């Protein structure tokens, strides 16, 4: 047991207990001296009576001092923790914050049922320990962590009702964030005791402090005991398989609408897993693949399927049921191919078969504006072009730009437009390096180089999405020899193609609002074999698609993130979203060059269907956070480090929750006891001090 004082500052008043002694000492000095005939009788009485009188005087002195001391201690608000008194007939009022893990991992099944049900059971036990005047806050630990019932509650029934209404979702765990929320709530609580309960599977991925660092304890109040934290782990099976990622890419060439779908399966278990993976598109299973994933490793399931590229499609990759179902399915969407408006800017003095010619033919070989509608203009007409109409602008060896053209391009880029610069014979190195394009593209030209024998164009990373299907091993499918190019210093750009021994050949840089690609060797047969290569068309198509932001249309986010889908093609009118559970929602619309519809912090995984005026304008895929599939628990040491600022304890399933908590709970305030003691002492004092002789 321990004794503390809530108003310790009043303990100085205990010094007043010396006042009776001081008065006694002063009084003794003022005692009258009387000449008396004989002390004979007084001496006899000394033995019998006077000693009793002195004893009574001493007792009175002690009692009076104790009265003052008892009053001073009562004012100092003593509290006794633990022990019999602590468990006895009640405790000082308590404010508790229950952090309940409702993340995706809590949906798994344990030996005794779902882990979340077990967690709610533990929370109920804690609620049962609350008494009248106690306050409770309920905080969900899933991302984003928030208070379930703003302001907390003093009602047990209300709290039980809230618990009943909770269910595990698909969101990731954020213990650090939840503890921070709880800490803020407890900081504002007024009750004497403040306790934090963390109930969940204490998944290790949920304890990343991130920028917050270790959890902070609510600031102490003078005289109040420090807030305490209790960690109540809910154990469950840890072996789990999950689909952590799905990528969808359009395959060029071959069957129209052919898409490659690759799913990554992660094995968080301790044994090698051999599982079938099924592919569904538009609700229909269209493929199945078997994968073998080592313990702690991953494996790829690859699929190929054709879809009507004129429509939106959705699908998912699915694993068989295991301990955790929420991560066995991963959704994806396929956006329809939309014609991309491309503004091709040629030089004023461009010849008939100039770079622009080859670019135009590569993008629109049949001149039917099938996939790309190319508007070809001279540089001098650039300023007069409509801003916002062309997602992509290609500068085909235009040389120097005037100020107007620079301004136009700057605005185009700032509004999200992509830019591809094809260098060539008109390129002015000095102008380039001093101009805005060098900084935006992160490419500083050095000098032109000539290789009479030619250098084979090579991929930097054969698996690059822009080069998918265009490489064989570490070589392009088509040997492209380059005799002339510019060497350059690349700063923070993504190099896709290179000229071994010379430098980069194709680089893509990301600006704050868009992307800029630079081809450092011209599309000129005198420079290289690209114009006549079968490699150029798919390369240009992919580069232009990328610069046009086509991939963004197939929005896929994790639970807890904002789902943002472009709705540029939506006609004016109300946009509505159908959630995975079939309910409807009005998203937030953001205007701009690329208008978007936003659903903030999506919670449920699945396909979100955006429609305007009855027409589908977008699909969005929401998936569980892959980290949630890792069910391994954080170690006590790791948790302890995170809670280092708290007085914390772990309560296991074999511990008796009530006794553990009540033992530590700062027990009874004893000020009443001291008041009763003072009253009793006053009664004793009155008895001792009563007149002994009438």
């Amino acid at each position, binding site marked *: 047991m321990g004794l503390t004082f809530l108003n310790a500052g009043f303990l100085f008043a205990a010094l007043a207990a010396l006042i009776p002694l001081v008065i006694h000492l002063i009084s003794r000095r003022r005692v*009258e001296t009387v*000449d*008396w005939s004989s002390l004979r009788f007084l*001496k006899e009485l000394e033995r019998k*009576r006077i000693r009793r009188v002195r004893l009574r005087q001493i007792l009175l002195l002690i009692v009076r001092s104790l009265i003052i001391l008892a009053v001073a201690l009562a004012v100092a608000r003593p509290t006794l923790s633990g022990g019999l008194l602590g468990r006895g007939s009640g405790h000082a009022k308590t404010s508790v914050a229950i952090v309940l893990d409702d993340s995706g991992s809590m949906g798994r099944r344990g030996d005794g049922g779902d882990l979340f049900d077990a967690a709610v059971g533990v929370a109920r036990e804690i609620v049962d320990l609350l008494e009248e005047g106690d306050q409770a806050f309920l905080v969900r630990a899933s991302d984003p962590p928030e208070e379930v019932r703003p302001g907390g509650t003093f009602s047990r029934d209300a709290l039980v009702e809230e618990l009943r209404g909770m269910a595990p979702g698909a969101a990731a765990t954020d213990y650090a964030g939840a503890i921070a929320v709880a800490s803020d709530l407890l900081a504002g609580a007024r009750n004497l005791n403040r306790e934090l309960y963390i109930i969940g599977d204490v998944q290790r991925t949920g304890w990343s402090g991130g920028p917050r660092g270790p959890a902070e304890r609510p600031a102490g109040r003078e005289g109040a005991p420090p807030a305490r934290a209790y960690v109540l782990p809910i154990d469950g099976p840890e072996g789990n398989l999950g689909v952590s990622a799905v990528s969808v890419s359009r395959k060029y060439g071959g069957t129209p609408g052919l898409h490659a779908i690759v799913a990554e399966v992660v094995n968080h278990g301790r044994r090698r897993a051999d599982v079938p993976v099924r592919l569904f598109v538009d609700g229909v299973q269209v493929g199945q693949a078997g994968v073998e994933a080592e313990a702690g490793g991953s494996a790829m399931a690859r699929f190929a399927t054709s879809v009507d590229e004129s429509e939106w499609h959705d699908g998912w990759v699915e694993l068989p049921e295991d301990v955790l179902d929420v991560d066995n399915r991963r959704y994806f969407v396929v956006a329809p191919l939309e014609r991309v408006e491309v503004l091709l800017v040629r030089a004023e003095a461009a010849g008939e078969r100039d770079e622009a010619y080859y670019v135009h033919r590569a993008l629109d070989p049949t001149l039917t504006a099938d996939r790309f509608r190319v508007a070809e203009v001279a540089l001098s007409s650039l300023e007069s072009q409509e801003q916002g109409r062309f997602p992509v602008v290609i500068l085909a060896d235009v040389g120097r730009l005037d100020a107007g053209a620079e301004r136009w391009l700057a605005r185009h880029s700032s509004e999200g437009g992509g830019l591809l610069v094809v260098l060539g014979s008109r390129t002015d190195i000095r102008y380039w390096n001093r101009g805005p394009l060098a900084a935006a593209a992160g490419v500083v030209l050095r000098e032109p180089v000539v290789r009479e024998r030619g250098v084979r164009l090579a991929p930097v990373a054969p698996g690059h999405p822009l080069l998918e299907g265009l490489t064989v091993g570490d070589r392009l499918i088509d040997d492209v020899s380059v005799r002339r190019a510019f060497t350059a210093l690349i700063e923070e750009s993504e190099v896709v193609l290179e000229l071994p021994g010379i430098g980069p050949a194709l680089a893509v840089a990301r600006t704050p609002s868009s992307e800029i690609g630079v081809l450092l060797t011209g599309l000129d047969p005198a420079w290289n074999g690209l114009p006549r290569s079968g490699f150029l068309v798919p390369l240009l198509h992919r580069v232009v698609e990328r610069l046009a932001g086509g991939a963004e249309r197939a929005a896929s986010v994790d639970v807890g993130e904002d789902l943002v889908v472009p709705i540029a093609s939506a006609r004016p009118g109300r946009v509505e979203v159908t959630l995975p559970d079939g309910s409807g929602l009005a998203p937030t619309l953001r205007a701009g060059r690329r208008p978007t519809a936003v659903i903030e912090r999506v919670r449920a995984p699945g396909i979100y269907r955006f429609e305007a005026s009855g027409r589908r304008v977008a699909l969005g895929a929401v998936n569980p956070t892959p980290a949630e599939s890792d069910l391994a628990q954080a170690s006590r040491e790791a948790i302890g480090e995170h809670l280092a600022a708290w007085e914390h304890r772990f309560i296991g399933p074999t511990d008796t929750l009530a006794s553990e908590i009540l033992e530590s709970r700062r027990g009874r305030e004893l000020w009443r006891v001291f008041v009763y003691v003072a009253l009793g002492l006053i009664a004793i004092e009155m008895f001792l001090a009563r007149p002994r002789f009438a």
Partner: protein
Amino acid sequence: MAEESYRRFLDPAVVSKLATMELRARLVVEGFVTGLHRSPYKGFSVEFAEHRQYMPGDPLKHIDWKVFGKTDRFYVKEYEEETNLRGYVLLDASASMAFGGDGISKLEYGRYLSAALIYLMLKQQDSVGLLVFDQAVREFIPPRSSPRQLHILLSELDRTEPASETEIGLVLHELARRMRRRGLVILISDLLDDPEDVLPGLKHFRHLKHEVIVFHVLDPREAEFRFERDATFRDMETGELMTTEPFAIRRDYLEAVDDWIGRLRRECAESRIDYVPIRTSTPYDRALFSYLEKRKRLG
């Protein structure tokens, strides 16, 4: 002047009242005075008292031949003892007798009382002596019945000052040894000594057939012990100090005083000693007169 000083003890009103009073010895004493007290033992005497006719059997030596020569008749002389009632006034002059509340001290009271008794007995033509004591006999004036004795004794009373401690028992025993003839012992004291010492001393006198009167003089404060606040008491004889709560112990104190007085009264009564408790708040003459009247009534 000293003479005028001691005359203060003889208040005219008191003296005139005393003239009407007497102090008779109740118990038989040897010798008697030509006043109230006559010795029953006539026979040889030191002093011729009277003639009476010879009767056969009378000793021939007692025949007054001068009277026979004149009268031719035989007469014998009868003689009387020179000793009359011998009174001894014992005055306690120890330091405790100096205690007095707002009024008179016990010693001063005792002096007045002693003076009155001396005057009374001398008026009765008894012999009176004075013994002043504290822890020993300080002054002893043997009993005389001459008129000058009054001056001598009153002067001594006037000079008496309180001092030293009390040893009543020793003094009583000493006087008892000195007294050859039976007499009347009048002790005037506060008796603030151990009764185990005082009473045997008094009883010694009775053993020797003396009559004893004890005037137990106390100040009202000593008897009532009324104090409102804590006090430190200083013993007037020893200087010893004691601090206590008088109001807290008063009951026990009074009980102790009662027990003490009760024992003195009881044992004095058993030994046929007159025990007269007096408070100095009572005028001495009233106290004395009251006692004498009571004594006279009781015979």
